[in-house]
Protein backbone atom coordinates (compact mmCIF):
# COMPACT_ATOMS: atom_id res chain seq x y z
CA UNK A 1 0.00 0.00 0.00
CA UNK A 2 2.67 2.43 0.97
CA UNK A 3 4.37 2.21 -2.40
CA UNK A 4 1.26 2.74 -4.49
CA UNK A 5 0.19 5.73 -2.44
CA UNK A 6 3.57 7.33 -2.50
CA UNK A 7 3.60 7.01 -6.27
CA UNK A 8 0.36 8.96 -6.38
CA UNK A 9 1.79 11.56 -4.08
CA UNK A 10 4.49 12.26 -6.62
CA UNK A 11 1.83 13.17 -9.11
CA UNK A 12 2.28 10.13 -11.32
CA UNK A 13 -0.79 8.53 -12.87
CA UNK A 14 -2.96 6.40 -10.64
CA UNK A 15 -1.61 2.88 -10.34
CA UNK A 16 -3.44 -0.21 -11.48
CA UNK A 17 -5.32 -2.07 -8.72
CA UNK A 18 -2.66 -2.27 -6.04
CA UNK A 19 -1.47 -5.57 -4.71
CA UNK A 20 -1.07 -5.42 -0.95
CA UNK A 21 2.56 -5.22 -0.04
CA UNK A 22 3.73 -7.97 2.30
CA UNK A 23 3.12 -7.02 5.87
CA UNK A 24 0.65 -4.29 5.04
CA UNK A 25 -2.75 -4.51 6.75
CA UNK A 26 -5.16 -6.45 4.56
CA UNK A 27 -8.88 -5.77 4.17
CA UNK A 28 -10.60 -5.59 7.54
CA UNK A 29 -11.80 -8.99 8.71
CA UNK A 30 -12.96 -8.78 12.29
CA UNK A 31 -16.55 -7.62 12.77
CA UNK A 32 -15.38 -4.83 15.07
CA UNK A 33 -13.15 -3.45 12.37
CA UNK A 34 -15.70 -3.83 9.65
CA UNK A 35 -18.26 -1.98 11.70
CA UNK A 36 -15.77 0.80 12.28
CA UNK A 37 -15.07 0.80 8.57
CA UNK A 38 -18.75 1.14 7.71
CA UNK A 39 -19.17 4.01 10.15
CA UNK A 40 -16.17 5.68 8.66
CA UNK A 41 -17.63 5.29 5.19
CA UNK A 42 -21.05 6.60 6.20
CA UNK A 43 -20.21 9.34 8.67
CA UNK A 44 -16.91 10.83 7.58
CA UNK A 45 -18.38 12.91 4.71
CA UNK A 46 -20.54 14.74 7.24
CA UNK A 47 -17.51 15.37 9.42
CA UNK A 48 -15.71 16.94 6.47
CA UNK A 49 -18.50 19.32 5.51
CA UNK A 50 -19.33 20.08 9.14
CA UNK A 51 -16.79 22.91 9.66
CA UNK A 52 -18.39 24.90 6.85
CA UNK A 53 -21.93 24.42 8.07
CA UNK A 54 -21.03 25.05 11.72
CA UNK A 55 -19.22 28.26 10.82
CA UNK A 56 -22.06 29.30 8.56
CA UNK A 57 -24.69 28.53 11.20
CA UNK A 58 -22.84 30.52 13.86
CA UNK A 59 -21.60 33.48 11.84
CA UNK A 60 -23.96 33.53 8.86
CA UNK A 61 -27.37 31.99 9.40
CA UNK A 62 -27.97 32.88 13.03
CA UNK A 63 -26.97 36.54 12.53
CA UNK A 64 -29.09 36.67 9.38
CA UNK A 65 -32.20 35.63 11.26
CA UNK A 66 -31.32 37.69 14.30
CA UNK A 67 -30.90 40.77 12.09
CA UNK A 68 -34.36 40.11 10.68
CA UNK A 69 -35.74 39.90 14.22
CA UNK A 70 -33.93 43.10 15.22
CA UNK A 71 -35.30 44.90 12.19
CA UNK A 72 -38.80 44.50 13.66
CA UNK A 73 -37.75 46.12 16.94
CA UNK A 74 -36.56 49.36 18.34
CA UNK A 75 -33.09 48.58 19.72
CA UNK A 76 -30.31 50.78 20.87
CA UNK A 77 -26.71 49.80 21.51
CA UNK A 78 -26.70 48.02 24.87
CA UNK A 79 -30.47 48.43 25.38
CA UNK A 80 -33.43 46.06 25.33
CA UNK A 81 -35.52 45.50 22.25
CA UNK A 82 -39.08 46.77 21.92
CA UNK A 83 -41.44 45.29 19.33
CA UNK A 84 -42.22 47.74 16.55
CA UNK A 85 -43.53 45.56 13.72
CA UNK A 86 -42.72 46.99 10.33
CA UNK A 87 -42.13 50.50 11.70
CA UNK A 88 -38.43 50.45 10.79
CA UNK A 89 -39.28 49.61 7.21
CA UNK A 90 -41.99 52.24 6.85
CA UNK A 91 -39.61 54.76 8.43
CA UNK A 92 -37.10 53.87 5.73
CA UNK A 93 -39.68 54.38 3.02
CA UNK A 94 -40.34 57.86 4.42
CA UNK A 95 -36.67 58.73 4.81
CA UNK A 96 -35.07 60.83 2.11
CA UNK A 97 -31.67 59.63 3.37
CA UNK A 98 -32.63 56.06 2.54
CA UNK A 99 -33.80 56.89 -0.99
CA UNK A 100 -30.72 59.03 -1.51
CA UNK A 101 -28.44 56.20 -0.38
CA UNK A 102 -30.35 53.70 -2.51
CA UNK A 103 -30.02 55.96 -5.57
CA UNK A 104 -26.31 56.52 -4.88
CA UNK A 105 -25.68 52.80 -4.49
CA UNK A 106 -27.41 52.26 -7.82
CA UNK A 107 -25.64 55.02 -9.76
CA UNK A 108 -22.19 54.31 -8.33
CA UNK A 109 -22.85 50.65 -9.02
CA UNK A 110 -23.71 51.29 -12.67
CA UNK A 111 -20.91 53.82 -13.21
CA UNK A 112 -18.35 51.42 -11.75
CA UNK A 113 -19.61 48.08 -13.04
CA UNK A 114 -20.50 48.80 -16.67
CA UNK A 115 -17.21 50.46 -17.79
CA UNK A 116 -15.28 48.00 -15.65
CA UNK A 117 -16.70 44.92 -17.35
CA UNK A 118 -16.56 46.45 -20.85
CA UNK A 119 -12.92 47.43 -20.40
CA UNK A 120 -12.17 44.00 -18.93
CA UNK A 121 -13.65 42.39 -22.06
CA UNK A 122 -11.48 44.55 -24.31
CA UNK A 123 -8.42 43.94 -22.18
CA UNK A 124 -8.99 40.19 -22.22
CA UNK A 125 -9.32 40.30 -25.99
CA UNK A 126 -5.97 42.10 -26.27
CA UNK A 127 -4.30 39.71 -23.82
CA UNK A 128 -5.58 36.82 -25.92
CA UNK A 129 -3.30 37.73 -28.85
CA UNK A 130 0.06 36.07 -29.21
CA UNK A 131 2.14 38.50 -27.23
CA UNK A 132 5.66 39.24 -26.21
CA UNK A 133 5.82 40.02 -22.51
CA UNK A 134 2.50 38.28 -21.90
CA UNK A 135 3.38 37.45 -18.30
CA UNK A 136 4.31 41.05 -17.53
CA UNK A 137 1.05 42.47 -18.90
CA UNK A 138 -1.04 39.94 -17.01
CA UNK A 139 0.66 40.58 -13.70
CA UNK A 140 0.63 44.36 -14.28
CA UNK A 141 -3.12 44.57 -14.85
CA UNK A 142 -3.68 42.35 -11.82
CA UNK A 143 -1.52 44.47 -9.50
CA UNK A 144 -4.44 46.73 -8.43
CA UNK A 145 -6.21 43.61 -7.13
CA UNK A 146 -3.38 43.23 -4.60
CA UNK A 147 -4.00 46.76 -3.32
CA UNK A 148 -6.39 47.12 -0.42
CA UNK A 149 -9.49 49.28 -0.52
CA UNK A 150 -7.98 51.55 2.12
CA UNK A 151 -4.63 52.04 0.40
CA UNK A 152 -6.14 52.50 -3.06
CA UNK A 153 -8.71 55.00 -1.80
CA UNK A 154 -6.11 57.05 0.10
CA UNK A 155 -3.93 57.28 -3.02
CA UNK A 156 -6.85 58.19 -5.30
CA UNK A 157 -8.16 60.75 -2.80
CA UNK A 158 -4.85 62.58 -3.29
CA UNK A 159 -4.90 62.17 -7.08
CA UNK A 160 -8.47 63.51 -7.16
CA UNK A 161 -7.81 66.41 -4.79
CA UNK A 162 -9.45 69.55 -6.12
CA UNK A 163 -6.59 71.93 -5.32
CA UNK A 164 -3.37 70.02 -5.93
CA UNK A 165 -4.40 66.61 -7.30
CA UNK A 166 -2.67 65.30 -10.40
CA UNK A 167 -5.95 64.63 -12.20
CA UNK A 168 -6.99 68.29 -12.11
CA UNK A 169 -3.45 69.27 -13.11
CA UNK A 170 -3.65 67.06 -16.18
CA UNK A 171 -7.15 68.36 -16.96
CA UNK A 172 -5.69 71.86 -16.73
CA UNK A 173 -3.06 71.02 -19.35
CA UNK A 174 -5.82 69.97 -21.73
CA UNK A 175 -7.70 73.18 -21.00
CA UNK A 176 -10.40 72.08 -18.57
CA UNK A 177 -11.37 73.91 -15.39
CA UNK A 178 -10.55 72.10 -12.16
CA UNK A 179 -13.31 69.69 -11.14
CA UNK A 180 -14.58 69.55 -7.58
CA UNK A 181 -14.16 65.83 -7.11
CA UNK A 182 -15.35 65.70 -3.53
CA UNK A 183 -18.23 68.10 -3.02
CA UNK A 184 -20.11 67.82 -6.30
CA UNK A 185 -22.42 64.88 -6.71
CA UNK A 186 -21.47 63.39 -10.06
CA UNK A 187 -17.73 64.07 -9.91
CA UNK A 188 -17.58 62.49 -6.44
CA UNK A 189 -19.49 59.45 -7.60
CA UNK A 190 -17.29 59.15 -10.68
CA UNK A 191 -14.15 59.43 -8.54
CA UNK A 192 -15.36 56.63 -6.24
CA UNK A 193 -16.37 54.50 -9.21
CA UNK A 194 -12.91 55.01 -10.66
CA UNK A 195 -11.34 53.46 -7.57
CA UNK A 196 -13.61 50.42 -7.84
CA UNK A 197 -12.98 50.13 -11.57
CA UNK A 198 -9.23 50.44 -11.13
CA UNK A 199 -9.11 47.66 -8.54
CA UNK A 200 -11.26 45.13 -10.41
CA UNK A 201 -10.82 45.57 -14.16
CA UNK A 202 -7.67 43.45 -14.42
CA UNK A 203 -9.14 40.70 -12.25
CA UNK A 204 -12.22 40.45 -14.45
CA UNK A 205 -10.07 40.60 -17.58
CA UNK A 206 -8.21 37.50 -16.44
CA UNK A 207 -11.45 35.65 -15.79
CA UNK A 208 -12.62 36.56 -19.32
CA UNK A 209 -9.25 35.59 -20.77
CA UNK A 210 -9.52 32.13 -19.25
CA UNK A 211 -12.96 31.69 -20.76
CA UNK A 212 -11.77 32.99 -24.16
CA UNK A 213 -8.98 30.46 -24.27
CA UNK A 214 -11.49 27.67 -23.90
CA UNK A 215 -13.42 28.74 -27.03
CA UNK A 216 -12.92 26.05 -29.70
CA UNK A 217 -10.59 27.09 -32.49
CA UNK A 218 -12.86 25.77 -35.28
CA UNK A 219 -15.49 28.39 -34.51
CA UNK A 220 -13.01 31.09 -35.45
CA UNK A 221 -11.89 29.17 -38.51
CA UNK A 222 -15.46 28.83 -39.72
CA UNK A 223 -16.13 32.51 -39.09
CA UNK A 224 -12.95 33.50 -40.94
CA UNK A 225 -14.02 31.33 -43.87
CA UNK A 226 -17.34 33.15 -43.94
CA UNK A 227 -15.36 36.33 -44.30
CA UNK A 228 -15.96 37.69 -40.82
CA UNK A 229 -13.59 40.46 -39.78
CA UNK A 230 -11.78 40.17 -36.46
CA UNK A 231 -14.19 42.62 -34.87
CA UNK A 232 -17.10 40.59 -36.24
CA UNK A 233 -15.52 37.41 -34.87
CA UNK A 234 -15.17 39.06 -31.47
CA UNK A 235 -18.87 40.02 -31.48
CA UNK A 236 -20.28 36.86 -33.04
CA UNK A 237 -17.98 34.14 -31.75
CA UNK A 238 -16.11 35.29 -28.65
CA UNK A 239 -18.89 37.11 -26.80
CA UNK A 240 -21.60 34.43 -27.23
CA UNK A 241 -19.12 31.68 -26.34
CA UNK A 242 -18.17 33.23 -23.02
CA UNK A 243 -21.66 34.38 -22.11
CA UNK A 244 -21.87 32.24 -18.93
CA UNK A 245 -18.64 33.81 -17.69
CA UNK A 246 -19.93 37.30 -18.46
CA UNK A 247 -23.09 36.53 -16.54
CA UNK A 248 -20.99 35.26 -13.64
CA UNK A 249 -18.95 38.48 -13.48
CA UNK A 250 -22.10 40.60 -13.71
CA UNK A 251 -23.56 38.79 -10.72
CA UNK A 252 -20.36 39.05 -8.68
CA UNK A 253 -19.89 42.75 -9.51
CA UNK A 254 -23.51 43.51 -8.72
CA UNK A 255 -23.19 41.88 -5.33
CA UNK A 256 -20.00 43.84 -4.72
CA UNK A 257 -21.55 47.12 -5.82
CA UNK A 258 -24.56 46.63 -3.54
CA UNK A 259 -22.22 46.35 -0.56
CA UNK A 260 -19.92 49.26 -1.41
CA UNK A 261 -18.56 50.64 1.87
CA UNK A 262 -14.82 51.19 2.20
CA UNK A 263 -14.23 53.37 -0.86
CA UNK A 264 -16.84 56.07 -0.13
CA UNK A 265 -16.10 55.86 3.59
CA UNK A 266 -12.38 56.55 3.25
CA UNK A 267 -12.73 58.85 0.23
CA UNK A 268 -14.90 61.13 2.38
CA UNK A 269 -12.17 61.54 5.03
CA UNK A 270 -13.72 62.92 8.21
CA UNK A 271 -17.08 63.21 6.44
CA UNK A 272 -16.89 59.58 5.33
CA UNK A 273 -19.73 58.04 7.31
CA UNK A 274 -22.24 60.58 6.00
CA UNK A 275 -20.94 60.17 2.45
CA UNK A 276 -19.81 63.75 1.89
CA UNK A 277 -21.13 67.13 3.03
CA UNK A 278 -24.47 66.65 1.27
CA UNK A 279 -24.60 62.83 1.47
CA UNK A 280 -23.76 62.92 -2.22
CA UNK A 281 -21.96 59.58 -2.07
CA UNK A 282 -23.55 57.89 0.91
CA UNK A 283 -24.27 54.27 0.00
CA UNK A 284 -26.67 51.85 1.71
CA UNK A 285 -23.79 50.26 3.65
CA UNK A 286 -22.61 53.66 4.86
CA UNK A 287 -26.13 54.63 5.89
CA UNK A 288 -26.46 51.34 7.74
CA UNK A 289 -23.18 51.95 9.55
CA UNK A 290 -24.22 55.49 10.42
CA UNK A 291 -27.59 54.34 11.77
CA UNK A 292 -26.10 51.45 13.73
CA UNK A 293 -22.85 52.77 15.07
CA UNK A 294 -23.16 56.57 15.06
CA UNK A 295 -26.86 57.02 15.85
CA UNK A 296 -27.11 53.72 17.71
CA UNK A 297 -30.40 52.74 16.07
CA UNK A 298 -29.67 49.06 15.54
CA UNK A 299 -33.24 48.19 14.56
CA UNK A 300 -33.16 50.66 11.68
CA UNK A 301 -29.70 49.52 10.65
CA UNK A 302 -30.98 45.93 10.60
CA UNK A 303 -33.89 46.96 8.40
CA UNK A 304 -31.42 48.50 5.92
CA UNK A 305 -29.40 45.28 5.93
CA UNK A 306 -32.52 43.27 5.13
CA UNK A 307 -33.51 45.65 2.36
CA UNK A 308 -30.08 44.94 0.85
CA UNK A 309 -30.73 41.21 0.95
CA UNK A 310 -34.16 41.71 -0.64
CA UNK A 311 -32.55 43.81 -3.38
CA UNK A 312 -30.04 41.08 -4.11
CA UNK A 313 -32.80 38.46 -4.22
CA UNK A 314 -34.73 40.71 -6.60
CA UNK A 315 -31.69 41.11 -8.84
CA UNK A 316 -31.19 37.34 -8.75
CA UNK A 317 -34.81 36.76 -9.74
CA UNK A 318 -34.55 39.20 -12.64
CA UNK A 319 -31.37 37.47 -13.76
CA UNK A 320 -33.04 34.04 -13.72
CA UNK A 321 -35.96 35.45 -15.67
CA UNK A 322 -33.67 37.00 -18.28
CA UNK A 323 -31.74 33.74 -18.58
CA UNK A 324 -34.98 31.86 -19.20
CA UNK A 325 -36.17 34.35 -21.84
CA UNK A 326 -32.76 34.13 -23.45
CA UNK A 327 -32.87 30.36 -23.59
CA UNK A 328 -36.31 30.46 -25.19
CA UNK A 329 -35.10 32.91 -27.79
CA UNK A 330 -32.23 30.59 -28.66
CA UNK A 331 -34.74 27.75 -28.97
CA UNK A 332 -32.74 25.47 -26.73
Amino acid sequence: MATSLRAAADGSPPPAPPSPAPGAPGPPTSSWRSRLYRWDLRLSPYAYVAPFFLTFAAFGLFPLIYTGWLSLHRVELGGDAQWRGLDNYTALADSEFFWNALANTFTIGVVSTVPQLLMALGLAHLLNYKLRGRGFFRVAVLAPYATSIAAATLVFAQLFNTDYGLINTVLGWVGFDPVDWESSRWPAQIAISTIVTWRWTGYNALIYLAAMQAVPQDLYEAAALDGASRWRQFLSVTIPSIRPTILFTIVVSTIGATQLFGEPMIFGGSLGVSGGSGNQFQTLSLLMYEKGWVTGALGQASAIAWVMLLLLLLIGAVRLLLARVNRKKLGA
Partner: protein
Amino acid sequence: MSRVRVSLRPSAGRQHHAGPLTYVLLGLAALVSLFPLYWNLVAASHSGERVVEAPAPLLPGPRLFDNLTFAWNQVDMGEALVNTTVVAGLVALSTVLFSTLAGFAFAKLPFKGRGAMLTLVVATMTIPPQLSVIPLYRIITDLGWVDQLQSVVLPSLVAAFGVFFMRQYLIEALPVELVEAARMDGAHSLRIIWHVVFPVARPAMAVLGMLVFVQAWNDFFWPFIALTPDGNPTLQVALAGLGSGNHTVDQSIVLTGALISTLPLLLVFAVLGKHIVGGITAGAVKS
Protein backbone atom coordinates in the same frame (compact mmCIF):
# COMPACT_ATOMS: atom_id res chain seq x y z
CA MET B 1 -23.94 28.99 -45.32
CA SER B 2 -23.00 25.33 -45.45
CA ARG B 3 -19.39 25.00 -46.37
CA VAL B 4 -16.92 22.22 -46.45
CA ARG B 5 -14.70 22.47 -43.40
CA VAL B 6 -11.14 22.93 -44.61
CA SER B 7 -8.23 23.05 -42.25
CA LEU B 8 -7.01 26.61 -42.22
CA ARG B 9 -3.69 28.11 -41.33
CA PRO B 10 -3.18 27.50 -37.62
CA SER B 11 -3.07 31.20 -36.86
CA ALA B 12 -6.76 31.72 -37.56
CA GLY B 13 -8.97 33.37 -34.97
CA ARG B 14 -7.60 33.94 -31.54
CA GLN B 15 -4.07 32.96 -32.36
CA HIS B 16 -3.37 36.18 -34.28
CA HIS B 17 -0.12 37.86 -33.48
CA ALA B 18 -0.54 41.16 -31.72
CA GLY B 19 -0.10 44.28 -33.84
CA PRO B 20 1.48 47.57 -32.70
CA LEU B 21 -1.90 48.97 -31.62
CA THR B 22 -2.36 46.05 -29.22
CA TYR B 23 0.96 46.80 -27.57
CA VAL B 24 0.11 50.49 -27.29
CA LEU B 25 -3.26 49.75 -25.67
CA LEU B 26 -1.83 47.11 -23.34
CA GLY B 27 1.02 49.43 -22.43
CA LEU B 28 -1.56 52.07 -21.57
CA ALA B 29 -3.51 49.59 -19.45
CA ALA B 30 -0.33 48.57 -17.62
CA LEU B 31 0.52 52.24 -17.05
CA VAL B 32 -2.92 53.02 -15.64
CA SER B 33 -2.71 49.92 -13.43
CA LEU B 34 0.75 50.65 -12.10
CA PHE B 35 0.82 54.46 -11.93
CA PRO B 36 -1.17 54.86 -8.67
CA LEU B 37 1.18 52.35 -7.04
CA TYR B 38 4.21 54.23 -8.32
CA TRP B 39 2.74 57.51 -7.19
CA ASN B 40 2.12 56.05 -3.75
CA LEU B 41 5.87 55.45 -3.52
CA VAL B 42 6.57 58.99 -4.76
CA ALA B 43 4.21 60.56 -2.22
CA ALA B 44 5.72 58.49 0.58
CA SER B 45 9.15 59.89 -0.25
CA HIS B 46 8.27 63.58 0.15
CA SER B 47 7.47 65.80 3.09
CA GLY B 48 3.85 66.33 4.07
CA GLU B 49 3.96 69.93 2.80
CA ARG B 50 5.32 68.96 -0.59
CA VAL B 51 2.64 66.32 -1.23
CA VAL B 52 -0.22 68.81 -0.84
CA GLU B 53 1.41 71.45 -3.04
CA ALA B 54 0.34 71.95 -6.65
CA PRO B 55 1.48 70.49 -8.93
CA ALA B 56 1.87 67.19 -7.10
CA PRO B 57 5.34 65.60 -7.30
CA LEU B 58 5.98 63.04 -10.01
CA LEU B 59 9.48 61.92 -9.07
CA PRO B 60 10.67 60.29 -5.83
CA GLY B 61 11.93 62.64 -3.15
CA PRO B 62 14.48 62.27 -0.35
CA ARG B 63 12.30 61.45 2.65
CA LEU B 64 11.20 57.85 2.08
CA PHE B 65 13.29 56.42 4.90
CA ASP B 66 12.33 59.17 7.37
CA ASN B 67 8.66 58.69 6.59
CA LEU B 68 8.91 54.92 6.92
CA THR B 69 10.61 55.23 10.29
CA PHE B 70 8.07 57.77 11.49
CA ALA B 71 5.03 55.79 10.37
CA TRP B 72 6.48 52.60 11.79
CA ASN B 73 7.16 54.10 15.22
CA GLN B 74 4.47 56.71 15.70
CA VAL B 75 1.42 55.00 14.32
CA ASP B 76 2.18 51.40 15.14
CA MET B 77 2.19 50.25 11.55
CA GLY B 78 4.54 47.52 12.75
CA GLU B 79 1.96 46.16 15.17
CA ALA B 80 -0.73 46.42 12.52
CA LEU B 81 1.50 44.55 10.09
CA VAL B 82 1.96 41.72 12.58
CA ASN B 83 -1.79 41.62 13.32
CA THR B 84 -2.63 41.48 9.64
CA THR B 85 -0.12 38.73 8.98
CA VAL B 86 -1.49 36.66 11.86
CA VAL B 87 -5.10 37.16 10.79
CA ALA B 88 -4.52 36.54 7.08
CA GLY B 89 -2.27 33.54 7.81
CA LEU B 90 -4.74 31.86 10.16
CA VAL B 91 -7.70 32.53 7.88
CA ALA B 92 -5.84 31.21 4.84
CA LEU B 93 -4.63 28.06 6.64
CA SER B 94 -7.99 27.13 8.10
CA THR B 95 -9.93 27.99 4.94
CA VAL B 96 -7.63 25.83 2.84
CA LEU B 97 -7.81 22.92 5.28
CA PHE B 98 -11.58 22.93 5.78
CA SER B 99 -12.34 23.75 2.14
CA THR B 100 -10.24 20.81 0.99
CA LEU B 101 -12.01 18.43 3.38
CA ALA B 102 -15.46 19.66 2.39
CA GLY B 103 -14.53 19.91 -1.28
CA PHE B 104 -13.30 16.29 -1.21
CA ALA B 105 -16.53 15.10 0.41
CA PHE B 106 -18.65 16.98 -2.14
CA ALA B 107 -16.54 15.81 -5.07
CA LYS B 108 -15.90 12.15 -4.30
CA LEU B 109 -17.80 10.80 -1.31
CA PRO B 110 -21.40 9.67 -1.68
CA PHE B 111 -23.65 10.75 1.18
CA LYS B 112 -27.29 11.58 1.74
CA GLY B 113 -28.20 15.21 1.08
CA ARG B 114 -25.02 15.95 -0.84
CA GLY B 115 -26.73 17.80 -3.69
CA ALA B 116 -28.92 19.91 -1.43
CA MET B 117 -25.98 20.77 0.83
CA LEU B 118 -23.85 21.82 -2.11
CA THR B 119 -26.63 24.06 -3.40
CA LEU B 120 -26.82 25.63 0.05
CA VAL B 121 -23.06 26.24 0.06
CA VAL B 122 -23.25 28.07 -3.26
CA ALA B 123 -26.34 30.01 -2.21
CA THR B 124 -24.62 31.39 0.89
CA MET B 125 -22.15 33.22 -1.32
CA THR B 126 -24.76 35.86 -2.16
CA ILE B 127 -25.52 36.84 1.44
CA PRO B 128 -23.95 40.25 2.04
CA PRO B 129 -21.78 40.59 5.16
CA GLN B 130 -23.92 43.58 6.17
CA LEU B 131 -26.60 41.11 7.24
CA SER B 132 -24.51 39.61 9.98
CA VAL B 133 -22.45 42.46 11.40
CA ILE B 134 -25.01 43.78 13.88
CA PRO B 135 -25.58 40.49 15.76
CA LEU B 136 -21.88 39.65 15.42
CA TYR B 137 -21.01 42.98 16.97
CA ARG B 138 -23.37 42.29 19.88
CA ILE B 139 -21.82 38.85 20.33
CA ILE B 140 -18.25 40.08 20.41
CA THR B 141 -19.25 42.93 22.73
CA ASP B 142 -20.85 40.45 25.13
CA LEU B 143 -17.78 38.24 24.97
CA GLY B 144 -15.45 41.20 25.48
CA TRP B 145 -13.81 40.53 22.12
CA VAL B 146 -13.86 44.05 20.72
CA ASP B 147 -10.31 44.80 19.54
CA GLN B 148 -9.42 41.10 19.83
CA LEU B 149 -8.13 39.43 16.70
CA GLN B 150 -10.24 36.29 17.18
CA SER B 151 -13.35 38.33 16.41
CA VAL B 152 -11.98 38.76 12.90
CA VAL B 153 -10.54 35.27 12.46
CA LEU B 154 -13.43 33.10 13.69
CA PRO B 155 -16.14 34.18 11.21
CA SER B 156 -13.70 33.58 8.33
CA LEU B 157 -12.52 30.08 9.25
CA VAL B 158 -13.98 28.61 6.08
CA ALA B 159 -15.59 30.16 3.00
CA ALA B 160 -18.19 28.89 0.56
CA PHE B 161 -16.01 30.01 -2.30
CA GLY B 162 -13.17 27.81 -1.07
CA VAL B 163 -15.38 24.73 -0.70
CA PHE B 164 -16.72 25.22 -4.21
CA PHE B 165 -13.26 25.90 -5.64
CA MET B 166 -11.77 22.72 -4.15
CA ARG B 167 -14.75 20.63 -5.22
CA GLN B 168 -14.40 21.81 -8.81
CA TYR B 169 -10.71 20.98 -8.78
CA LEU B 170 -10.99 17.58 -7.11
CA ILE B 171 -13.80 16.38 -9.38
CA GLU B 172 -11.35 16.32 -12.26
CA ALA B 173 -7.99 15.95 -10.56
CA LEU B 174 -8.73 13.05 -8.22
CA PRO B 175 -9.57 9.72 -9.89
CA VAL B 176 -12.17 7.94 -7.81
CA GLU B 177 -10.24 4.69 -8.36
CA LEU B 178 -7.42 6.12 -6.28
CA VAL B 179 -9.73 6.62 -3.33
CA GLU B 180 -11.28 3.18 -3.75
CA ALA B 181 -7.89 1.52 -4.06
CA ALA B 182 -6.81 3.08 -0.80
CA ARG B 183 -10.02 1.88 0.83
CA MET B 184 -9.40 -1.65 -0.47
CA ASP B 185 -6.07 -1.46 1.27
CA GLY B 186 -7.97 -0.81 4.48
CA ALA B 187 -7.04 2.84 4.84
CA HIS B 188 -9.49 4.81 6.96
CA SER B 189 -10.67 8.10 5.57
CA LEU B 190 -8.31 10.40 7.47
CA ARG B 191 -5.44 8.33 6.12
CA ILE B 192 -6.86 8.66 2.62
CA ILE B 193 -7.09 12.40 3.05
CA TRP B 194 -3.50 12.64 4.21
CA HIS B 195 -1.92 10.28 1.69
CA VAL B 196 -4.16 10.68 -1.37
CA VAL B 197 -6.28 13.82 -1.28
CA PHE B 198 -3.77 16.34 0.03
CA PRO B 199 -1.01 15.38 -2.42
CA VAL B 200 -3.39 15.55 -5.40
CA ALA B 201 -4.99 18.77 -4.20
CA ARG B 202 -1.74 20.56 -3.37
CA PRO B 203 -1.63 22.90 -6.42
CA ALA B 204 -5.22 24.03 -5.89
CA MET B 205 -4.61 24.39 -2.15
CA ALA B 206 -1.68 26.69 -2.87
CA VAL B 207 -3.76 28.85 -5.21
CA LEU B 208 -6.71 28.99 -2.82
CA GLY B 209 -4.35 29.85 0.01
CA MET B 210 -2.93 32.79 -1.93
CA LEU B 211 -6.36 34.08 -2.96
CA VAL B 212 -7.74 33.84 0.56
CA PHE B 213 -4.61 35.40 2.03
CA VAL B 214 -4.93 38.40 -0.31
CA GLN B 215 -8.61 38.72 0.50
CA ALA B 216 -8.09 38.48 4.26
CA TRP B 217 -5.16 40.90 4.10
CA ASN B 218 -7.33 43.48 2.35
CA ASP B 219 -10.60 42.83 4.18
CA PHE B 220 -12.13 46.03 5.51
CA PHE B 221 -15.80 46.10 6.47
CA TRP B 222 -15.97 43.72 9.43
CA PRO B 223 -12.45 44.40 10.78
CA PHE B 224 -13.28 48.12 10.71
CA ILE B 225 -16.25 47.41 12.99
CA ALA B 226 -14.66 44.80 15.24
CA LEU B 227 -11.27 46.44 15.71
CA THR B 228 -10.50 50.08 16.44
CA PRO B 229 -7.47 52.03 15.22
CA ASP B 230 -6.39 52.53 18.82
CA GLY B 231 -6.93 48.98 19.97
CA ASN B 232 -5.54 46.12 17.98
CA PRO B 233 -5.98 47.16 14.35
CA THR B 234 -5.18 45.35 11.16
CA LEU B 235 -3.40 47.43 8.53
CA GLN B 236 -6.63 48.40 6.81
CA VAL B 237 -8.21 49.60 10.04
CA ALA B 238 -5.08 51.52 11.03
CA LEU B 239 -5.02 53.10 7.58
CA ALA B 240 -8.65 54.16 7.77
CA GLY B 241 -7.81 55.80 11.11
CA LEU B 242 -4.86 57.59 9.54
CA GLY B 243 -6.97 58.75 6.61
CA SER B 244 -9.76 60.19 8.69
CA GLY B 245 -7.30 62.30 10.65
CA ASN B 246 -7.48 60.57 14.03
CA HIS B 247 -3.71 60.66 14.37
CA THR B 248 -2.22 62.98 11.82
CA VAL B 249 -3.09 65.11 8.85
CA ASP B 250 0.35 64.65 7.32
CA GLN B 251 -0.60 63.16 3.97
CA SER B 252 2.87 61.83 3.27
CA ILE B 253 2.65 59.76 6.47
CA VAL B 254 -0.83 58.56 5.52
CA LEU B 255 0.49 57.47 2.14
CA THR B 256 3.56 55.89 3.71
CA GLY B 257 1.11 53.81 5.74
CA ALA B 258 -0.68 52.87 2.53
CA LEU B 259 2.65 51.87 1.03
CA ILE B 260 3.51 49.69 4.03
CA SER B 261 0.17 47.92 3.72
CA THR B 262 0.52 47.33 -0.02
CA LEU B 263 4.19 46.47 -0.36
CA PRO B 264 4.18 42.97 1.17
CA LEU B 265 1.38 41.81 -1.14
CA LEU B 266 2.99 43.45 -4.17
CA LEU B 267 6.21 41.60 -3.40
CA VAL B 268 4.26 38.35 -3.19
CA PHE B 269 2.69 39.22 -6.55
CA ALA B 270 6.02 40.01 -8.14
CA VAL B 271 7.35 36.60 -7.07
CA LEU B 272 4.25 34.43 -7.51
CA GLY B 273 2.44 36.53 -10.12
CA LYS B 274 2.19 33.80 -12.74
CA HIS B 275 0.77 31.29 -10.28
CA ILE B 276 -1.81 33.76 -8.99
CA VAL B 277 -2.83 34.60 -12.56
CA GLY B 278 -3.09 30.88 -13.25
CA GLY B 279 -5.15 30.39 -10.11
CA ILE B 280 -7.67 33.10 -10.94
CA THR B 281 -8.14 31.74 -14.43
CA ALA B 282 -8.37 28.14 -13.18
CA GLY B 283 -11.10 29.12 -10.76
CA ALA B 284 -13.06 30.86 -13.47
CA VAL B 285 -13.11 28.31 -16.29
CA LYS B 286 -14.74 25.66 -14.24
CA SER B 287 -17.44 27.82 -12.72
